[in-house]
């Protein structure tokens, strides 16, 4: 199961990076969103995938699920959600002000 999940995370990363290298702003943002999904899935996989056991560690309990990766993912999801929404607004304003959403045309050399 871990192997499949790792491959899935890898696929998300690859498609994310492909989109990141595009010129259109919206594609780039979708790329970053895909990469963050890949990263979250990856954390989940790294904490070992187990079901049916409580997330408690006590003296006599041998079989337990690691609760930490889920706590980490939750934090990370909230953060990437916030940044992505900010990025969307920013992209909207930037393309309105500059009259283009093509990153090629947003290099900016006039203040050298």
């Amino acid at each position: 199961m871990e192997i499949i999940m790792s491959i899935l995370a890898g696929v998300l990363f690859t498609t994310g990076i492909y989109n990141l290298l595009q010129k259109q702003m919206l594609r780039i943002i979708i790329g970053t969103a895909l990469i963050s999904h890949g990263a979250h899935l990856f954390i989940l996989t790294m904490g070992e995938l187990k079901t049916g056991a409580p997330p408690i560690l006590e003296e006599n309990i041998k079989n337990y699920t690691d609760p930490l990766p889920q706590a980490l993912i939750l934090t990370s999801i909230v953060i990437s959600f916030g940044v992505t929404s900010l990025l969307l607004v920013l992209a909207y304003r930037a393309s309105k002000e500059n009259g283009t959403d093509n990153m090629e045309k947003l290099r900016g050399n006039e203040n050298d």
Partner: protein
Amino acid sequence: MISNLAVLPIVIPLIAGVLAILFHKKLKIVRVYSQVLTLINTGVVTYILFYVHQNGSVVLQAGDWMAPFGIVLVADMLSMTLVLTTNIVALACIFYAPKSLSIKQEEFYFYTFYFLLITGVSGAFITGDLFNLFVFFEVLLMASYGLIVLGGEKVQLRESMKYVLINLFSSMLFVTTIAFLYSVVGTVNMAQIAERVGEAEQTGILTTIGILFFFVFGTKAALFPLYYWLPKPYIAPNPVISALFGALLTKVGIYSLLRVFSLIFVYERDVTHELFIWIAALTLIFGSIGALSTNNIKLVVAYNIIPAVGFMLLGIGVYNSTGFSGTVYYLVHDMIIKAALFLLVGAITYLVGTSDLRKMRGLIHHYPLLGWMFFISAFVLAGIPPFSGFIGKLVLLQGAIEADRIVIAIIGLGSSLLILLSVLRIFIRGFWGEKDESIIPDRKAARGFILPVAFLLFFSVLLGVGAEWFYPSIESIGDYLMNPENYIESILKE
């Protein structure tokens, strides 16, 4: 009870920032409020530094969750020194801000973003938990996203897009790297990671993870070849915001490198630290060439961040206690002088109306005090005795020579010359020469700018002239970093 001290430098600016939202349009109140709270915070931080100096590190186990399970906040000499420097820079910026920002910018939550930025930077310095470090990185980055677009000009919007994208990407890489490390060592507490990496004698996979961390922090700290994103976004916002960015943000990256590579990944130095030395050399060369390549005075200062980062990485790379002391000393020096230079250049741009060096001449006739202050800061930056840059570079190069790294020492000296040339060029072309009669000097505005810069320059000169007083404590930080057992023990004592 006393361990709660460690959380104060995070909580005070956080609450201050949230409360500042309530009266963000009453400018007179919010200005005084921010200045007073920054002063209080500086006072508290000074007290904690003094306390830590007397009694050793203060460790807070948040929520009474014992060390490897909960989040720990560690106020040791290194982190508190840097938090104090952060607050000194913040103090200068908060008094400079009303003169430089437009009313619209101030009303649009500048003070809230400012306090949240301080929260994030202080938190990143104090935390002893790798995932928490990521969270504080995000706190300071979120505040910086707000600050960089403050005003919403065309250039700002364009440059902030790139800034947000590169930081978002490197943050995601940071999370992935933490996941890798978690799967190998099963913890995110830095002390316990260090312990376990030591037990495993740093196998190949751990070294790979170490290099990934280097890539993440290198992007934040603007090292060669990952610095390409830095100069332009840094000059897009208002000078006071540039000063906060230039002084604080890249330094958090360098601090993280210093922590991680003095504590955790120290067993395969032939691979990691050897790499740092060569990256440091390239950063020094390309950064100082970049500073010479432009006539925009703001861009010159922004490019000057890069060789400074190279110097600090050099101290980490040579891996001896002199090198570490040099890095810490240089961090303190560089935070102060970069803020001073950005504020000075901002003042010049405001007074002349352009940042193009070709359009300036003879400014010294109109603004003599500003001119001489720029002259002193150029000397501080390049490392001319008796100022603080000299001591920092001296210690760093001493560390390099102790480790038999003569080539890198020579590159460091050479790049210092280029740095001196790049800033003196501004002085010679902008301040010397015939009086420009077309400028009507605005002495009153100039006076307002001078005071915060003079405050920062005072510390730069003090650090250089009074090196005898400060150096012993910095040297003890260097020794402390060379012996990570002390850090591990102070957290996992039970």
